């Protein structure tokens, strides 16, 4: 099984990256290349949608961790949304990604983004 990475850029500065399939040693390069094509200054909020991601290995986690670090270094945020239960389980075991950057649903994410916007204005 492979990985599909779809990058959807919106006008409001957000960028949604939809993953589908598996994120493991065989597919991390595809993800790394696509995420590196996202301009952090143009897209300070990057949302990785995991709803169609069926599997993640430690190599995949490492890629997400690197992407998060890259965004942070550029003053941007990378947030994860809709992990499937088996992917969530891996996140919970490894604890590599801060809990506050993983959202169970788009509703939860939207509430967070609204709050951030109110705080900054």
């Amino acid at each position, binding site marked *: 099984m492979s990985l599909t990475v779809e990058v959807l850029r919106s006008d409001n500065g957000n960028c949604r990256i939809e993953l589908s399939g598996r994120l*493991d*040693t*065989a597919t991390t390069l595809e993800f790394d290349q696509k995420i590196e094509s996202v301009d952090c200054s143009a897209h300070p909020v990057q949302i990785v949608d995991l709803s169609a991601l069926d*599997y993640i*290995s*430690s*190599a995949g*986690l*490492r890629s997400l*961790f*690197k992407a998060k670090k890259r965004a942070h270094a550029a003053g941007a945020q990378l947030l994860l949304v809709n992990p499937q239960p*088996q992917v969530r389980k*891996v996140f919970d*075991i*490894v*604890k*590599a990604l801060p809990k506050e950057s993983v959202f169970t649903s788009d509703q939860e994410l939207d509430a967070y983004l609204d709050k951030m916007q109110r705080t900054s204005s």
Partner: protein
Amino acid sequence: MHRVFTLANECSQVEPILNEMVAHLEEQGVGEEILHDLRLVSEELLLNTVSYGYENGVKDRLSVSVTREGGSLIFEFRDEACAFNPLEAEERDPECDRLGGWGIPLLKELTDAIEYRREGKQNVLILRKNER
């Protein structure tokens, strides 16, 4: 049920053998969650061994024997790579590729028992995963 899978120590061989193992267990009626966990720990172990366990140019055949008995699945990994007990590996910087970054907690949390021993030139790692 008992079956042995073998692969050469090449990264490209890992995914096909994992697919074969999962297909075999699926045919035996093993549940989805168990399949996911076993595939993940097997991938972590095999890739680590193949990627880091050998000097340049050394060829080996790794084996994974899969047994189902008494409500458990038992995986036995054998190889002639450098001696390496993943249970004693330190947790490392997550940016380091070597198992010990994040592979170890996955190995420990997703299995019910792990045993390692060195037999002559072989690493032998046995995992047990209960089906209930």
